[in-house]
């Protein structure tokens, strides 16, 4: 892997000029946000005034209505402006970061990993009603084709009528072509995630003839549970060095990571609770506040190196 340019230098040469263009926009947004807050306070003052003044003066009522209308108008304008700001921020800043990390990668803010890959992975086999996502990155890192994006997958609760959606998965979904050919299906789940609900038939694709795989690495078996429909192929994929690397990767991310090896691809689900690439308009656009996005993207791109997927000594170039 070629030496990566340090973030401070990327920031000063490529990101800072874009941020300088965005900063006035962010300040305008802050002003608009303050205006919304002030009009809301004015509306609430009128509302409580009307409640506590026994004569309920009619002019105060009209002022309250006026404050409310202006507040709503400002709020809608704020949302519109915020949408444009986020779009521009992703196009100007995140895109620059992605290119700085690896010029062969392409970033599409509005796209997501196609649902076919998510379905094939069977990591969350419960079935879903809503599949949304953004911040899609694709390209070739060394010899390995990769794609990843944020995903949010929801399911309508069947037990309660008109109920809210329940969240199946939220986080990063990563797909890469694996460096070995295989035809079966092998799943590696974080033990903490699947240990207790594994016996629930709804949570597992029992149509597939899967067996538990007993592997030799104690560190690996302490952390993960492995199932596959081919005992030999599972061990062909999960070589001792790959198992070691997967444990290291899971410790590095400190998340309940799950892996699926299907159709000669490796798919990794990394759960996160928050949106990862959205800017916070209340934070000044500085190097300090931008570097977490860079670090996250570097960690994602480095999965290829961490798992040594560029080692193509088998018949899969």
């Amino acid at each position: 892997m070629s030496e990566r340019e340090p973030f401070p230098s990327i920031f000063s040469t490529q990101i800072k000029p874009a941020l300088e263009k965005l900063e006035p926009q962010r300040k305008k947004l802050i002003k608009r946000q303050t205006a919304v807050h002030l009009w809301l306070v004015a509306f609430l003052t009128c509302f409580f005034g009307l409640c506590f003044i026994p004569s309920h003066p009619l002019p105060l009522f009209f002022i309250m209505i006026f404050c409310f209308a202006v507040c709503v108008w400002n709020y809608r304008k704020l949302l519109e402006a915020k949408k444009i700001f986020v779009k521009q921020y992703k196009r100007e800043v995140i895109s620059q970061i992605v290119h700085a990390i690896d010029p062969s990668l392409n970033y599409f803010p509005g796209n997501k990993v196609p649902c076919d890959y998510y379905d094939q992975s069977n990591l969350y086999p419960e079935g879903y009603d809503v599949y949304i996502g953004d911040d899609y990155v694709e390209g070739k890192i060394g010899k390995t084709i990769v794609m990843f994006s944020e995903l949010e997958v929801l399911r309508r609760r069947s037990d309660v009528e008109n109920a809210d959606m329940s969240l199946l998965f939220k986080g990063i979904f990563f797909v890469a072509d694996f460096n070995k050919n295989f035809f079966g299906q092998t799943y590696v789940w974080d033990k903490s995630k699947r240990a207790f609900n594994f016996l629930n038939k709804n949570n597992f694709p029992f149509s597939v003839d899967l067996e538990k795989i007993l592997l030799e690495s104690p560190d690996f078996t302490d952390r993960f549970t492995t199932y596959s429909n081919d005992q030999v192929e599972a061990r062909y994929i999960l070589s001792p060095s790959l198992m070691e690397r997967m444990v290291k990767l899971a410790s590095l991310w400190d998340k309940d990571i799950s892996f699926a090896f299907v159709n000669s691809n490796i798919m990794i689900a990394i759960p996160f609770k928050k949106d990862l690439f959205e800017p916070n308009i209340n934070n000044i656009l500085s190097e300090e506040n931008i570097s977490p996005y860079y670090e996250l993207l570097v960690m994602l791109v480095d999965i290829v190196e961490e798992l040594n997927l560029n080692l193509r000594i088998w018949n899969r170039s």
Partner: protein
Amino acid sequence: MWILDLLAILIFVSGIVFYNILVTKKNKIDQAYYSIDLMLKKRYDLVPMLVSTVKGYMTHERETLESISQLRSDILTGNLKVNGKVAADNEINSGISSIMLSAEAYPDLKASANFIHLQGALNESEEQLAASRRFLNAAVMDYHNAIEKFPSNMIAGIFGMKRRNFFIVPEKEKEHPVLHINKQA
């Protein structure tokens, strides 16, 4: 009295269950042996390809090439006894390794598309063979646990189920490979 009948039925049913579990585990070992045989067969199938790819380049290794071709045909025709087969396996593997190491001295061979593909196929078969052997060891360990743990050890004792052998890496394969480069004339 009915309690004794119930107990007898319970013991009989448990006996059947434990026996079936032990048989499943024993069969898994056989399955692992078959998968090793299959992977070895895949590896042997690469020998003719290896010989035809390298013979034009390697003039000094003609003897090794002839010997592994002969060993392959002996193994496939089943002319060897069990001990002979194991020795032939080891011989063929060390022959392949030595040819691959010698290839370092032939830059034209190393750069040829056929050789690169062959190298990939050999690495793949090596890794698959290693996976089969790991499967065998896992199956043997699982079986040993079952025949030694209570109460399945009683059923194993009644039906004479004995310990099976783990796959152990031959001493020769544990040695670090030494690269002897033949200088081209």
